[in-house]
């Protein structure tokens, strides 16, 4: 029982952690682009 639970737990944890890390990085890049666009519209 423990082995089966471990296999599912490791898979779920790894996929969720990887997805969350990608989502965070994506959000960071998006916000940087928005900030730069905002800054250039203010100065331009």
């Amino acid at each position, binding site marked *: 029982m423990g082995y089966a639970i471990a296999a599912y737990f490791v898979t779920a944890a790894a996929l969720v952690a990887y997805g969350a890390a990608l989502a965070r990085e994506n959000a960071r*890049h998006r916000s940087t*682009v928005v900030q730069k666009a905002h800054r250039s519209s203010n100065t331009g």
Partner: protein
Amino acid sequence: MTPMTKPFSQTKDDSAHTTNGGLSPLEQQATRWRQPFGWLLVVITLVYAWAVFQAPLDHTQGVIQKILYVHPPLAYGAYLGFVITAIGGLLYLWRGREDCDRLAISGAEVGVLFCTLMLVTGPIWARGTWGRWWSWDPRLTVTLLLWFVYLAYLLLRSFSGPGPRTARFAAIYGVIGLVLIPLNYYVIEIFDNRSMHPDNLERGSLGDGMGWPFLLGNLCLGFAFIYLVLLRWEVEARRVFQQRQEALEEPDT
């Protein structure tokens, strides 16, 4: 001084994606497709969890046999990731499109993740049934080799920096690495069934009531795979775009 090779930032499709955060039209379309996939994934995951819980117990192995509903789907995801790497690489070589190169990187990274999880769940299953974590069995050995080949691809991409030469080399490498997939799939038959690893699954080889959970496992992990590849592709496009923007803003030295 004129650079010997054309900078990656001046290649064919780098022209006018600046208003879209660096995403090519294909990548924008992929981003739009990603959202519904996410919701579908949540629903399928719940159904999958219920199906695995309800699946009948195997008479010989007991509960540990339920690893069947996660281990082969991870293998199919890994294969698919490396096939995407090869297709992306070939399209890059043929059309010179950077978005295809970025797709190749995404396929390799998610493929390596799935391959890693296959190499983790397999030994867990082996420990419970064979009594040991690892055996230098043909299937396991070729799988480990496949993992090393595409891990090396990712290391190549992260350490050699951007550029058309790296992209071309990586594309060829990704295509050649694909040879290991049919070898890995048929290695049990090649070794005349002397492998400890069970034979490849065939239609009707699963017990009663095990087909649906297995199908749902493939659907769930397939959707997770597609979602992660699309997200990774978008991240790569935005990361490259941001790097170029920063390079343009830096004063000349």
